[in-house]
């Protein structure tokens, strides 16, 4: 067996484990680290259900080799908000009814968080572009875009 030792930061905590060379970050997060907020949809980078933040940028965790994230920073939906309070984005998704079946929500949140961390007050076009890798089959997207706009405004006020 040629397992690879990998150490990285996951939701602000150091983790270290042995993985298979071809293991996907998605499987490591869900099956080994038991953080099942990140979902698997298509498995080929089309749907965005598995989106996580890697060094602050939204990526498809189904397309990342875990061994490649050595020394890097990964954030999943479990790493949003604090112990007691929700991330502003999460609250805005609730307020705007941007969640229906919920399967796309963790990925949507991570794409949106990466956008807001990068661009303080994004335009509607920028929001749509940031979410262009996340499919939602329920909401029709309108509420999601509005929720991101509201969260951006709320963060600006702070």
């Amino acid at each position: 067996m040629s397992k690879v030792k990998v150490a990285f930061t996951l939701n602000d905590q150091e983790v270290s484990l042995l993985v298979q060379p071809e293991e996907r970050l998605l499987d490591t997060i869900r099956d080994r680290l038991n953080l099942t907020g990140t979902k698997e949809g298509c498995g080929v980078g089309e749907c965005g259900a598995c989106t996580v933040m890697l060094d602050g940028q939204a990526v498809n965790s189904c397309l990342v080799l875990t061994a490649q994230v050595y020394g890097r920073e990964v954030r999943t939906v479990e790493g949003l908000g604090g112990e007691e309070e929700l991330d502003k984005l999460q609250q805005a998704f609730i307020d705007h009814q941007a969640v229906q079946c919920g399967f796309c929500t963790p990925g949507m949140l991570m794409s949106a968080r990466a956008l807001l961390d990068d661009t303080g007050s994004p335009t509607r076009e920028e929001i749509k572009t940031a979410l262009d890798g996340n499919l939602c089959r329920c909401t029709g997207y309108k509420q999601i875009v509005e929720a991101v706009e509201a969260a951006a405004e709320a963060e600006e006020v702070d």
Partner: protein
Amino acid sequence: MTEDIKFFQTDNLEAALELLADSSGVIKPVAGGTDLMVKIREDRELLQEFAGILDITNISELQGIAEEQDFVRIGALVTHREIIKSELLQEKYPALVEAARALGSTPIRNRGTIGGNVCNAAACADTLGPLVAFEAEVVLASQAGERVVPAGDLVEKPYQTVIRQDELLRYFRLPLPAEGTFSSFQKIGRRQAAAITRISLVLVARVSQGTVEHIRIVPGSAIPVPEPFTALEKRIKGQKIGEIDSKELSALAGEEMVKITGERWSTPYKKPALATLVRRALVELKEVADNE
């Protein structure tokens, strides 16, 4: 089984090249992995073709965008996101930036690299057309040293390049465009976001005092490997911009495509679609020339 596959990681170019030169098995370099991971998922047997996977993402010699004396250097590891954000590339090579913008989705553009897009060499590789149209050169590194291949000669056929097993694509060298060079990228996908390109087109041109002095027209996806439409270019070069009949010329693009691909089931769609992209690009060129 895939038990024997090894994972290598280095930030040292020499060490990477040494590993690739080792003839005991195929070592697959991986950067963003956005193509490779999909292929592995489709066919796990694929892994057996490799003795190992080499993560090249930490090799600094393959990173970065920089303007040098008479060219701009784009490292193989530059992501599509970095291309889109680069003010230098926006200013000098807008068609390349537009191609990167049109590629995949945000998470794919964050992770996928220009080197990977080119090395994977899909017929729909969005960045290859602009690189050919801007007459880029590709610098390949191996233990034997470097060799330089024109971007137009890099891909032999879809998914096959001239890059040897012991070589790594190090960077692209894009000649600085002459003052007043215009470029346009046009694309048809099945929908706006995250769509694989069905047909694309890059036009690079320079108009001086109303005359077209330089023109490159390179289609993508419509033909197996991006190459300039030289017959069409000949018809346009030296012409007065005001006298160009973009409708007639765009039809010629369709003819030139069929010359390369032959009549196929998709030809009745692709011919007028490609003609439309050529016409759009020529109309843009005329507008820009008129405003000067």
